[in-house]
């Protein structure tokens, strides 16, 4: 087209293009704060020219397309960084909770205070106020453990809720993505135009989805995208979203796991990244180990003190009973277990010192064999067929510190064993009577014989009977006194023939004086290391009270008395005090306080790591966002410039039309 109408028409295309461009600019300005919005640009091209008279005359301009400023690479980086940053932030904030609980609860202070109370009893064993104060300290200690255990457990409950919330959000997001997928597909074929806003919305939804769980995207040919979990399990396929659900774990009904809503397939272990990944990682790698560690410490303290307590005598002269009780060994059967009849299973701590903070899987592998696997590392800890008595199989995992009794289980049944999980939250001080503290040694060795209630020493030789101590197993060659009708029964050791130098002298041990009720007899070589006498405890606790008869000169009739420790005896309290600094935890490698410090340090390191990592990931995310925004973000200055640019273009085009108009007018007036 040429001529005056050509001028007007060509100018008109410019006018329209400028108008369109101004609309896009306006749209950019309007969406400056819309999350996920990508700046849009008009792509202008010149219109097809007209060939007249051997010349090409331009026909103005046209809007070729409206493009969004977009880099799929940079957007992908934002997604990945979002998943990591959100996961680490969740992990870090959850760990801070645990750290807050553990470090404010000050387990170590309570442990130290308890043992300081024990030391007071050791110093004044017959003093009731000292005993009362030790019991109060014990109650404080168990209350602290209980409260810390329960706080950790309630964090676990909170985690279940958060997992539920996260899953709800994931479902809503995947649903929306599937919908947008559908809308995008339906716009296919509308020329070469692209539904920029739908794409932006979908990208934004994927960003939100990544903040909940780490996902990967795969573009389809029809413009739809499929969304997968990081290990390839599908969440969105085209227009179909696969909903997730929380369901009770196959073993522990109190724990929420994540599964497909359609078939209940458990995908908990496949989830990484995002809030959900962070929560799951926190639960399995931080919270449960912390609960177990705390329980291990509670079980260790209770085990060691109860054992010591049972070796001594209380103020009433009887063997001490347990001071503490702790939560039971927790065992869950798999929901799928079908045994022969009803399955009964229970566990018991046999050696608190050998306990670890691990959870275990116990599987009946057939042929009466059982395999114990560490749940965390997956390593086989023990394989045993146990001992069967009365239909009950007892599986003793001594090296792991516990035993399990099971009946009715068949091959293929599996169980989750958590020996220490409830240790802390179930800890109680069950000794309530201060006289019940077994401060006294069971036996006190005295020189001389008991005669009408008094100790009378007519010994001529220099033989001595050592104060003695507890031993778990008797010494070889020791004279064993067992089968006492009650423990401790007063005993008398009487030398039956005199001697000196290297001679061997005989002695007998009797429950009565004057050679009645002889329980055992032995010989001691004078001048040597002496002769060991092992007096058997009843079982439990088992073991022996071991004393040593030694000396270099003996007369027939020399006597020694082993009488039950009185109110002033502090032997056992002393042994309890020594537990504070003994390496009794974790297979005799660390003290209670060391173990408490280890627990806190472990959580603190994890929290520190998570904190650093969360910060680092946040920085990565910021950079990714900055890069992405540098391409896709709206810059108002740029838009202002564009406004002026297009406004001027519009004004110029309008002027051209006006010129055309003038030309027309001139022409018409000339007629």
């Amino acid at each position, binding site marked *: 087209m040429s001529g005056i109408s050509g001028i007007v028409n060509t100018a008109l295309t410019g006018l329209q293009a400028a108008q369109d461009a101004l609309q896009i600019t306006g749209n950019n300005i309007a969406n400056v704060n819309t999350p996920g919005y990508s700046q849009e640009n008009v792509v202008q091209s010149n219109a097809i020219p007209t060939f007249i008279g051997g010349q090409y005359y331009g026909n103005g301009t046209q809007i070729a397309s409206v493009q969004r400023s977009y880099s799929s690479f940079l957007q992908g980086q934002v997604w990945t960084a979002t998943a990591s940053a959100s996961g680490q932030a969740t992990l870090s904030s959850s760990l801070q909770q645990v750290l807050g609980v553990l470090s404010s609860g000050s387990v170590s202070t309570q442990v130290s205070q308890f043992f300081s109370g024990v030391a007071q009893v050791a110093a004044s064993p017959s003093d009731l106020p000292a005993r009362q104060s030790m019991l109060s300290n014990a109650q404080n200690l168990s209350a602290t453990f209980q409260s810390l255990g329960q706080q950790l457990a309630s964090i676990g409950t909170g985690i279940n809720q958060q997992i539920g919330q996260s899953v709800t959000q994931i479902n809503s997001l995947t649903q929306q993505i599937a919908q947008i997928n559908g809308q995008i597909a339906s716009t296919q074929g509308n020329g070469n135009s692209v539904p920029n806003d739908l794409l932006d919305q979908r990208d934004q939804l994927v960003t939100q989805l990544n903040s909940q769980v780490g996902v990967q995207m795969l573009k389809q040919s029809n413009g739809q995208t499929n969304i997968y979990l990081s290990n390839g399990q599908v969440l969105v396929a085209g227009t179909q979203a696969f909903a997730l659900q929380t369901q009770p774990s196959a073993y522990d009904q109190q724990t929420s796991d994540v599964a497909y809503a359609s078939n209940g397939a458990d995908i908990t272990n496949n989830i990484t990244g995002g809030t959900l990944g962070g929560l799951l990682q926190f639960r399995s790698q931080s919270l449960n180990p912390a609960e177990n560690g705390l329980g291990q410490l509670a079980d260790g303290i209770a085990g060691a003190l109860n054992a010591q307590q049972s070796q001594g005598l209380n103020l009433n002269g009887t063997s001490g009973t347990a001071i503490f009780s702790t939560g039971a060994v927790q065992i869950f059967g798999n929901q799928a277990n079908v045994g022969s009849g009803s399955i009964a299973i229970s566990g018991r701590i046999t050696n608190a010192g050998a306990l670890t903070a691990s959870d275990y899987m116990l599987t009946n592998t057939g042929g009466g064999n059982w395999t114990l696997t560490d749940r965390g590392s997956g390593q086989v800890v023990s394989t045993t067929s146990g001992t069967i008595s009365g239909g009950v199989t007892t599986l003793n995992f001594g090296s792991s510190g516990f035993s399990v009794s099971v009946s009715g289980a068949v091959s293929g049944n599996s169980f989750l064993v958590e020996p220490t999980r409830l240790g802390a939250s179930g800890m109680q001080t069950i000794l309530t009577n201060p006289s019940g503290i077994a401060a006294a040694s069971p036996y006190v060795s005295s020189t001389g014989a008991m005669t009408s209630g008094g100790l009378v020493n007519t010994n001529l030789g220099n033989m001595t009977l050592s104060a003695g101590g507890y031993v778990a197993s008797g010494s070889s060659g020791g004279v064993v006194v067992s089968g006492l009708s009650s423990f401790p029964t007063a005993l008398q050791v009487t030398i039956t023939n005199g001697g000196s130098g290297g001679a061997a002298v005989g002695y007998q041990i009797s429950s009565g004086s004057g050679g009645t009720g002889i329980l055992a007899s032995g010989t001691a070589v004078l001048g040597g290391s002496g002769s060991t006498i092992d007096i058997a405890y009843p079982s439990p606790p088992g073991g022996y009270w071991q004393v040593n008869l030694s000396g270099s000169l003996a007369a027939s009739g020399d006597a020694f008395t082993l009488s039950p420790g009185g109110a002033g005896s502090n032997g056992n309290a002393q042994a309890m*005090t020594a537990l504070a600094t003994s390496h009794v935890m974790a297979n005799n490698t660390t003290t209670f306080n060391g173990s408490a410090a280890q627990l806190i340090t472990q959580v603190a390191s994890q929290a520190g790591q998570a904190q650093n990592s969360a910060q680092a990931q946040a920085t990565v995310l910021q950079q990714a966002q900055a890069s992405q925004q540098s391409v896709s973000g709206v810059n108002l200055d740029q838009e202002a410039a564009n406004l002026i640019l297009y406004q001027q273009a519009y004004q110029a085009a309008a002027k051209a039309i006006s010129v055309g108009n003038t030309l027309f007018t001139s022409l018409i007036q000339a007629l």
Partner: protein
Amino acid sequence: MRVSTTEIFQSSLTGMLNQQSTLNNLSQQLSTGNALINPASNPVANAQVLNLSSKIANLGSYQQSNQFAQQDLQLSSSTLQSVGTLINQVQQLAVQMNNATVSSSDLQNAETTMQGNLQQLVQLANTQDANGSYIYGGSQSGVTPFQLQGNNQVQYLGDSGQKNLEIGPGLTTAVSQAGDSVFMNIPAGNGSFTVTAANTNYQASASGVASGVGTTTLGPGTVINSAVANDQFVANGAQYQVTISNNGTSGMTYSVTSGTGTAGSAGWSASSGTVTSGSYTPGQDIAIPSTAGGTPFISVPTNGQPGTDPSTATFTLAAAQPQSLFQTFNDLVSALQAGDGSPGANTQRAQGISNVLANLSQAQTTLLSTQSQIGSQLQQAQSVQTLNTSLTQQFQTTQGTIADISYPQVITQFQQSTTALQAAQKAFAQVQGLSLFNYI
């Protein structure tokens, strides 16, 4: 790089938020003085602090036990000092009364004094600590350990239990002494054997006269060969009978026979015959071999000589049984009462007092060794206390180095952060004012 408008807001905001968080952290550190408010910020330092805390707590526990130990030891030490004074008094009294010229009223007064002394000794032995526990009852701290019977005998109801306390890592010290080891199990005589005079030595026959009773006393004697003495007295249960006879004109002789008996039984049979004999000179030492013609293994000093009626004096040498201090006090009472008014009273008293003095000196030895033991334990406790105190201080200093903030450093950081925050705020305000729209 092109920057989007939102990004300008966002990055400025993030910068300011970070600075605020740093400021908050620093101001917490400044207000508490603790660099480890959040253990996660330095887990290793936190672990060190925890370990040091438990070490300090353990030391505190040791210090507490140490104080109890020192209290117990001091109480025991001062009690035993009183016992020592009492023994000295009794020794003086015994020496005073060991004199032929004392009157019977003197003896009676002394006897009354001794009864008082005995009661005082029982009282001292039944000392209770602040909690009402008997400190010399062994493990039977709730029972009055020393019971004075009607016949002046004292029964010990305690046992040999000793209280130990841990006052340092792996350092256990005894903080009590069992009553029997202090008061009951004191070696009698010279520690190896005792000399017992036969009652007949000092009793004139019905027709006899006071002047006819002799003045022979024996002992306490010394051990020449302790191995043989142990063998003879303890292992074999041998006893020796020394007989000193006044044969009138044919002079004086002594003879020693040995025999064996069951330890602890009163009767013994002197069937082994004479091991040594000879003519007797008052004041001589009699050396006694275990067999006739053998090398002497013990020696006993003599004093005085038998009279005419009875003309012989018999003494039994037997293994020294442990004898309680109460028994020794009581023996002195008996010695003071002995043969009151009878012809041989003075001699009998002299023999009795001689034995008592020997036993008292044994008691002093036992007491002194117990006291020196207590003294060294006290000294040990005190030096451990000093050590533990300085160790505690050292740990606390180390803990401070790790956990306390360095004020200059933190204040500098605080000021830096404040400046940075102010700058960021100012920059934000200025950048936000920059817009092309202002000019169109």
